[in-house]
């Protein structure tokens, strides 16, 4: 069962204890290192079990309040500046408090969307192959492909495509004329004009001679995405040491994108969908589902805190937040528009914001408050259902053996 070299007896006594898997492995490790007897192993396992029980969260603990404080306190130490470069070279990523707020508010699009794209084996090892993926990702506009000149006398626009650039960005097509043809077709489709193509030169003009239409066409031409994903404005390639699933380190190329479109990116050949990720939790939710979104919320909040040197926040607090945000099957924000705003109790909502409106609405609709939550009970002066307040104590003992002292 275990990878450590311990006797079956040791394994039996340790398995018997109610402790989690990773702690159990730790026990085996110690037993192996010091070649301990079965009795000693049992003693250790017992001590570990006791300690583990003591450190567990007890029933009736106010875990939400503890989490709020445990995230809130380090939160006061976060930077309030919006921009700062992250570990990634040259890409600006929102950091610190604004990023944390963004995550907890579940914004539809983050301030600085980005993706981290890992590549499949053959693409990850060579810079050329990695570049092929880059051209599939990065949005290519006309200005990157060649020179555009406007001829007012002949009422036409002339594009001189750069053959080297074409060859580089369309590595699968050998003939540059063919690529230029493709480009001309895209122009025809999106602008509704007829084009004349000669080699790598493409010309077109407005149907009726009109100075304004001509300029309009040039404007629109600049907006067309010829290749890649519209949302992705820039891609940075970095060579990084990555740990493989077999626990080995190896160097591979990793892509960082400015702008994101996670679903589209995963479709591209060479992209390793199992490792790639995105900092927009809604895109993750749409493409990979709610569990992945939960995981991403935990990762992103944890990384945001870590980046500022606050890595001593227990993940369980972040997990609780992520669970609360996702447990209805879709991402909900914390705060007025999300979880706090959808509370059942009138009094709890009234205590939170716009008191009079809530009370008035509740009165008009004849709402009933069952006084189940904490806030309501504080308002009416009853014990709250937490800690000592939620112990249901009865007189009389059910058994004759009496109580056990702690």
């Amino acid at each position, binding site marked *: 069962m275990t990878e450590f070299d311990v006797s079956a007896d040791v394994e039996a006594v340790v398995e018997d204890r109610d402790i989690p898997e990773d702690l159990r492995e730790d026990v085996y490790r110690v037993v192996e290192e010091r070649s301990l007897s079965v009795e000693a192993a049992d003693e250790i396992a017992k001590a570990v079990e006791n300690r583990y029980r003591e450190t567990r969260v007890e029933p009736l603990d106010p875990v939400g309040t503890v989490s709020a404080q445990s995230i809130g306190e380090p939160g006061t130490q976060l930077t309030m500046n919006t921009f700062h470069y992250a570990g990634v070279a040259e890409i600006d990523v929102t950091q610190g408090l604004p990023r944390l707020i963004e995550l907890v508010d579940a914004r539809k699009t983050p301030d600085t969307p980005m993706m981290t794209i890992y590549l499949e084996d053959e693409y990850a090892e060579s810079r050329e192959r990695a570049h092929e993926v880059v051209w599939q990702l990065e949005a290519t506009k006309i200005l990157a492909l060649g020179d555009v000149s406007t001829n007012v006398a002949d009422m036409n626009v002339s594009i001189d495509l750069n053959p080297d650039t074409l060859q580089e960005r369309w590595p699968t097509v050998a003939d540059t004329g063919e690529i230029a043809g493709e480009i001309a077709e895209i122009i025809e489709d999106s602008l509704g004009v007829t084009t004349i193509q000669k080699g790598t030169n493409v010309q077109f003009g407005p149907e009726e001679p009109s100075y304004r239409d001509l300029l309009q066409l040039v404007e629109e031409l600049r907006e067309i995405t010829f290749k890649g994903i519209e949302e992705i404005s820039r891609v940075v390639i970095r060579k990084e040491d990555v740990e493989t699933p077999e626990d080995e380190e190896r160097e591979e190329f990793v892509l960082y994108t400015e702008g994101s479109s996670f679903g589209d990116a995963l479709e591209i050949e060479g992209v390793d969908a199992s490792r790639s990720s995105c900092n927009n939790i809604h895109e993750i939710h749409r493409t990979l589902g709610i569990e992945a979104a939960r995981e991403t919320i935990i990762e992103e909040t944890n990384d945001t805190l870590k980046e500022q040197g606050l890595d001593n926040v227990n993940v369980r607090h972040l997990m609780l937040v992520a669970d609360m945000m996702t447990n209805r099957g879709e991402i909900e924000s914390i705060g007025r528009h999300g979880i706090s705003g959808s509370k059942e109790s009138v009094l709890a909502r009234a205590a939170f914001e716009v008191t009079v409106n809530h009370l008035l609405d509740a009165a008009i609709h004849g709402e009933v408050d069952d006084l189940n939550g904490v806030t309501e009970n504080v308002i009416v002066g009853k014990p709250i259902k937490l800690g000592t307040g939620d*112990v249901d104590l009865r007189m009389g003992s059910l058994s004759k053996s*009496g*109580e*056990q*002292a*702690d």
Partner: protein
Amino acid sequence: MPGKQRYNRYEKARILGARALQVSYGAPVLIETDQTEPILIAAEEYDAGALPFTVRRGRGDE
């Protein structure tokens, strides 16, 4: 063992509080003790396992 219940700190506090209140109102003390403070008497009774309380736990915990 049947009836053997481990109380957590909230349950213990609740039990001690309830018992101390009874003692302060003049309930007969269930053990021999030198203590005079109701809460300390309650604590000794708790340690001796003499208190006739049951904690009902609604959710399926240990």
